[in-house]
């Protein structure tokens, strides 16, 4: 009896010991410059993934992992010290800055690309352009039928990103101007999901990052301007925004994180940004 008790106790002890040991080991492993953990925006995700692959090809000793959980979660991760680079498709909010500074984290923004928020509809939809005011009216529920904006008599199915999304916040700021969206809007969790919803629904309208607006959906002109590389960079497209990677402080030059967040400044980095469908910050050609 006594011995079995002992055995049980030893078992538990060994287990707790293993966990503590593991935790200790992971501390030391994290201290080395052998990994970069990237988390955040689903819009910046494709850029981060391409950068990660390119980076690992050229720096075999460094592991880069990329998660796409949304801008808000990216910011939270950075504040908690759970990631090295937070992808964000919006700027950090003042509350987030405050929370970060309180924890001794000082976010530094690196703009890796420019992006236009493409307002997309099903390609069968004859509507070619909308004004910003019309888009806002649609999302506020004031316009509910395509015939009110020059289309056929069909109900508008309004699709928006979830509120954790940086794309949502950018849309809210640039188009909605902080006015409230209507009840009964569909909120979906990613750019890909918005696109899928639009692809399969003739009456739907949604918005995605420029890199996600492919030939399976139709990107509308906004205020008469088509979203593309030139209109976004020149600032003529009215619903454009920068895409960020945030780090805790400016990374030490020569460190893996530094070369990762400056990759977009190289010619190859810019080519990758453009190849994926976003707009490089400067003209590299």
């Amino acid at each position, binding site marked *: 009896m006594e011995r079995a008790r*002992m055995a049980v106790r030893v078992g538990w002890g060994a287990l707790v010991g293993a*966990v503590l040991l593991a935790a200790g080991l992971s501390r030391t492993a*994290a201290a080395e410059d052998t990994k970069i953990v990237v988390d955040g925006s689903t819009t910046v995700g494709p850029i981060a993934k391409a950068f990660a692959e390119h980076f*690992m090809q050229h720096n075999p000793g460094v*592991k880069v992992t990329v998660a796409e959980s949304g801008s808000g979660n990216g910011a939270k991760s950075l504040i908690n010290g759970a990631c090295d680079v937070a992808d964000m498709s919006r700027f950090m909010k003042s509350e987030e800055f405050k929370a970060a500074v309180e924890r001794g984290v000082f976010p530094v923004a690196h703009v890796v690309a420019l992006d236009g928020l493409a307002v997309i509809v099903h390609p069968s939809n004859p509507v070619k352009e909308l004004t910003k005011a019309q888009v806002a009216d649609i999302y506020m529920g004031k316009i509910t039928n395509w015939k009110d904006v020059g289309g056929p*008599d069909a109900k508008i199915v309004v699709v928006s990103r979830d509120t954790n999304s940086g794309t949502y916040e950018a849309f809210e700021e640039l188009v909605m101007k902080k006015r409230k969206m209507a009840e009964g809007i569909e909120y979906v969790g990613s750019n890909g999901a918005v696109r899928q919803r639009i692809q399969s629904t003739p009456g739907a309208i949604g918005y995605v990052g420029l890199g996600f607006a492919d030939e399976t959906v139709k990107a509308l002109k906004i205020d008469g301007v088509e979203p593309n590389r030139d209109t976004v960079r020149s600032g003529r497209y009215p619903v454009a925004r920068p895409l960020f990677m945030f780090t805790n402080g400016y990374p030490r030059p020569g460190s893996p994180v530094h070369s990762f967040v400056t990759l977009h400044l190289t010619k190859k980095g810019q080519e990758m940004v453009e*190849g994926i469908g976003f707009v490089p910050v400067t003209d590299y050609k």
Partner: protein
Amino acid sequence: MRIETRKLLDKSFSGAGWISVFLMVAALAIILLPIAWRGAGAFVFRATVEHRRMMLELFGVGDPAEVSAETAAAAEARRPIYDMLARFRAELSAMPVADRRRMAGRLAQLENALRDLLGPLPGDPIPVLPRQRYGQTRWDRALKKLETVLFRETWDYSDPTRMGRKVMVPRAEDFKGTSLEPFFADVKMRVADMLRPKLAFYWRFLTDESRDSHFFGGIWPEMLGTIYLTIGAAMFAVPMGIISAVYLTEYAGDDRLTGALRTFIGALAGVPSIVFGLFGLAFFINTMKVSQSKSVLAGSLTLALLILPTIIRASEEAIRAVPAAYKEAALSLGAGKGRTIITVVLPAAMPGILTGIIISMGRAAGETAPIIFTAAVSVGDPLSLLETLSQPTPALPWNVYNMCTEHQKLDELRHVQFGMVLVLVMVVLALNVAAIWLRARISRKLKG
């Protein structure tokens, strides 16, 4: 009740039973067969010369001499096509301005479609992104892309009262009267020579790393991540589960506390898995800081919590099923309680316990929600054993979901997604079959 009525009721009951069994099998077939069929497409498909070139350049697989000979043959077949394009470009510069602008736009579209099909055109710089460096690697995809070379998709909006209709305009009509008009028939005729499809068995899908976020290569990091997470979960949950089960059956009295403990374990089994995921994030990562970021370790611990109740239950049942005579015999020979448990009870119960462990490992392998916040990422290299302590990993269930909702080019990568689903289903199925086999073996043994 009349005897006929009873018989009728009896028959209709067994009929209903048969029907429901049949429906279940049919539903399973409807779900599994397409998965198996389309998933097999990731392993067995007709591969083009681009596939073989890609495999050689990115993975170092294949005979360089053979591949370069084949690439040269394909280039030879492509040359007339590219020559026609070059001739047309020359013709273009001689056109009146209005025509030239219209034609140049169409030409740019055509060239992009052709790049999709065959890879970079002669004179293009080598693209940085691997996905743009190669033409279509799979013949089935190539035939789809061929359509976009031959036809231009437009929409007919002539009826303002309804949504538009899709119209496929042959590009040959776009270029009517120019030197490019015969181009399209030529492309269609030559496409097999230009891409040289051959049946390929791509078993390395399981063991290759993915390149350019799953455009090329296989699912090894995901496989390895799932293996790590599953084994890790079992490593934590099995000792704790068995010890708890021994305590509950052999030591705990039949008092209120034990009753409450049992209730808690039951409740734990009913908690939705996403709650475990959030708990794992809040407790293991944010509070305990077992790792700085998401990690395989944190994910394994979370999954261990998830499968713990199943293991405790299964072990308890197995220990209870050990005949009392075994224990009595051991005790009567002078063994202490601890020794009896370790040398007699646990070995006799082990088969049942193992079954429970294997089934719960199947559950851990397939769970998505607990690892979203604790372990899973969409892109990462395969990890070494030490790295699992501090680094997150891709894993099959999460990456199936992630690709489906998130990937920019999902439509071109359905085969990878189905391949992942198939592998995941097979892993879970194999674990379950192993459990069934084990159980059958044991019951045979027990019957003597």
